[in-house]
């Protein structure tokens, strides 16, 4: 005899297999399952339950003539009363027996019209158990056939449950892998570790946890740098609590040596709504650099295995360690670079100097560019800019050697070609495999405020002169690289530097800076910038050059040295604003010796306005009979500078 009263049980079983294998949860084929069993002869009601490995009743369903219901009131408790004696091979429990074990279930059976219950327990995925029961009428049912049918249904449930469980495990695995991969990409792509860790927490919440926080060790304390909560309103409470130094029930996080993975009580205020936590110490090269904490409501989800937490923690630790090391290295490089450059430039009457240095983008090695200014015993001054081939320790050593050799010889009065020759011979004798380029400018005072400039270039971009009218002229000096051939082939050039004129020296990284179209700064725009900006205070002019005129990307090591001949200084005093104009007027008369063009009755408008403020003004006037520079600087550090140049 067939177990189905309508004789179609094989068809229903077949449809159940189909539904079960198309479903992604047992809920999706529950209708098919319960209605099929309910149709069996003598079956008045069907119940089902899923139990945890600890036999906690997690999901219940009940189907009878009124339909299928999930989690009806009290059913979980009724089934819980049965769980200690659940049969695995099927047995009909008569009402008296059922009533002793579970009075509630017995009452439900009676209410459905049954007089006994066939119950079978079975194992499901993740060490859980399932229970299916049929409320039966003894006279109308065939226990053996019902047991067979129930066993067949259980085979479907178990197979589908394992498949669904494996599929979910696979998808969880894929999700975790994706999270770890994306977090790693973020952390590898940025050195702003705080910002990056904040972004990583946004990926973690709510995928792996309801809340999360990162602490980083700073000054021997764990300082919270990021916190996230799936509930925006509670996030602030969480962050405030952690920021105040309270965490995990401890007043202050200082020691990670006793840290336990968890789950642990979170020790957070009730209003945060998260009661447990899991945590991983961020450990890099034996050092604890931080803490990664996940917060949960209740037990952590299945995805939060300690492997995942530790994996993410180790990636974060590596990122923090790399960023810290990078910053330390940058600081060391900047410090060493600074020591290779003169701390201050000398003060020379009639001349003004300004220099600047640009370190290559994200360079972690000291560059070989350098500059210097050397006083000579006879009143001459030698300005120099050099560029050692390469970067790093060998280039640094050669830079030190070059500067020391040149400046020692020059400071004793040796001419620049002589100093270059000594350096060249020393490099060849010592078989130094690197070379360097260098330009020098020896400035000797002449008559009427002018300076004679003898320039040398050993394979270096020749210096530029910016004349009073703004024209830019390149020095004609030429020569070979230092450290390659015995003869440097130096061909010096001599020029005059009048008051109001500039001498500009630089290394090749400046002229090789490119704009977005690939054009070189040195082609046209450098000269235009010098023409346009020649009246700027020298420090600002150097800044404009190193900034590539806001168009060219100066991303190499570059040294720039600018010299201005400002002639004779006739006024350099701090004055109250109302005394500035008469003092400047007097100074200009002194310079001009009666020349009508410099003999102004009043300050130019923009300078006059500048001198109406409340603070004292440092007024400087310098030049000669045919050119003057007026520069007013507010004593207040935020007051700025105004200037003008006058040409007769």
């Amino acid at each position, binding site marked *: 005899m067939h177990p189905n009263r309508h004789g179609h049980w094989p068809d229903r079983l077949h449809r159940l297999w189909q539904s079960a294998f198309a479903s*992604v949860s047992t809920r999706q084929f529950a209708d098919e399952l319960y209605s099929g069993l309910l149709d069996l002869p003598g079956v008045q009601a069907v119940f089902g339950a899923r139990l945890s490995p600890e036999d906690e009743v997690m999901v219940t369903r009940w189907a009878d003539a009124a339909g299928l219901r999930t989690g009806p009131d009290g059913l979980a408790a009724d089934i819980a009363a049965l769980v200690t004696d659940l049969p695995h091979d099927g047995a009909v429990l008569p009402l008296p027996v059922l009533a002793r074990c579970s009075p509630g279930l017995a009452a439900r059976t009676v209410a459905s019209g049954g007089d006994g219950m066939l119950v079978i327990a079975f194992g499901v995925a993740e060490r859980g158990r399932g229970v299916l029961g049929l409320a039966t009428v003894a006279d109308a049912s065939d226990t053996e056939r019902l047991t067979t049918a129930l066993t067949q249904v259980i085979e479907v449930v178990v197979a589908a449950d394992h498949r669904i469980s494996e599929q979910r495990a696979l998808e*969880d695995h894929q999700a975790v892998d994706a999270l770890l991969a994306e977090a790693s990409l973020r952390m590898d792509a940025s050195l702003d570790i705080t910002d990056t860790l904040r972004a990583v927490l946004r990926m973690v919440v709510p995928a792996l946890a309801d809340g999360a926080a990162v602490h980083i060790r700073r000054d021997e304390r764990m300082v919270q740098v990021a916190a996230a909560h799936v509930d925006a309103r509670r*996030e602030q409470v969480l962050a405030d609590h952690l920021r105040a130094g309270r965490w995990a029930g401890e007043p202050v996080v200082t020691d990670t040596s006793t840290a336990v993975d968890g789950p642990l009580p979170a020790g957070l205020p009730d209003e945060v709504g998260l009661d447990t936590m899991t945590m991983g110490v961020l450990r890099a090269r034996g050092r604890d650099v931080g803490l990664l904490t996940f917060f949960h409501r209740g037990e952590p989800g299945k995805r939060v295995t300690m492997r995942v937490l530790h994996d993410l923690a180790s990636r974060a630790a590596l990122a923090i360690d790399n960023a810290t090391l990078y910053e330390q290295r940058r600081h060391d490089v900047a410090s060493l670079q600074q020591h290779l450059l003169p701390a201050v430039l000398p003060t020379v009457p009639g001349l003004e100097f300004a220099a600047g240095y640009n370190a290559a983008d994200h360079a972690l090695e000291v560059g070989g560019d350098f500059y210097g200014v050397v006083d000579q015993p006879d009143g001459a001054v030698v300005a120099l800019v050099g560029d050692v081939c390469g970067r790093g320790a060998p280039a640094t050593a050669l830079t030190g050697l070059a500067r020391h050799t040149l400046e020692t010889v020059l400071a004793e009065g040796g001419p620049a070609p002589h100093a270059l020759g000594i350096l060249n011979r020393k490099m060849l004798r010592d078989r130094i495999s690197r070379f360097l380029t260098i330009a020098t400018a020896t400035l000797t005072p002449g008559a009427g405020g002018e300076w004679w400039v003898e320039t040398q270039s050993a394979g270096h971009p020749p210096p530029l002169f910016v004349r009073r009218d703004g024209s830019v002229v390149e020095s004609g000096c030429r020569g070979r690289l230092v450290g390659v051939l015995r003869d440097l082939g130096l061909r010096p050039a001599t020029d005059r530097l009048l008051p109001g004129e500039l001498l500009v020296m630089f290394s090749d990284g400046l002229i090789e800076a490119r704009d977005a179209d690939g054009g070189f700064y040195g082609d046209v725009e450098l000269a235009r910038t010098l023409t346009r900006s020649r009246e700027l205070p020298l420090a600002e002019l150097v800044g404009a050059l190193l900034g590539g005129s806001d168009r060219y990307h100066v991303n190499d090591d570059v040294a720039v040295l600018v010299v201005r001949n400002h002639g004779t200084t006739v006024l350099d005093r701090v004055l109250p604003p109302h005394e500035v104009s008469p003092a400047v007027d007097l100074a200009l008369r002194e310079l001009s010796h009666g020349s009508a063009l410099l003999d102004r009755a009043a300050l130019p408008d923009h300078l006059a306005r500048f001198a109406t403020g409340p603070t004292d003004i440092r007024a400087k006037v310098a030049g000669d009979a045919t050119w003057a520079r007026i520069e007013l600087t507010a004593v207040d550090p935020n007051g700025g500078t105004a200037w003008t140049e006058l040409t007769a």
Partner: protein
Amino acid sequence: MDRTDSVTDANLVLVVEDSEVDREAIDRALSRSHPELQLEFLPNGNAVLDRLRDPTRPRPALMFLDLSMPGVDGYGVLSSVRADPAFAALTIIVLTSSTTSADIERCYAAGADSYIYKPVNFALFRTVLQGAVDYWHSLPSPD
């Protein structure tokens, strides 16, 4: 009928998302993790208020809101919905690909209940959506 007479359906979720690909992904993800939910989609922010105020239809308990949309963007929707006290109980979850602090703070200030990062990977996206729905569905109803 007064507009406040609309009944809130705890299983109704409104998804405001202009990307068809993302709408499909949300549909696929939530129909698997939470088959009991009924999803309703709007392709832009322009019609959100009219939909919420429609007295003939049940009101959603939860709204997923994309931030970057043509027309009225997510911030605009957030501000207008939160300006109406009738929708105070509506949970609004912002979905975005940005993780910058400024965007997060702006959304919180405008009244978002959750700020959810929208990952590219579908498995992770499904997990994120599931985590958010699990959290808000497990809270006691404000009523």
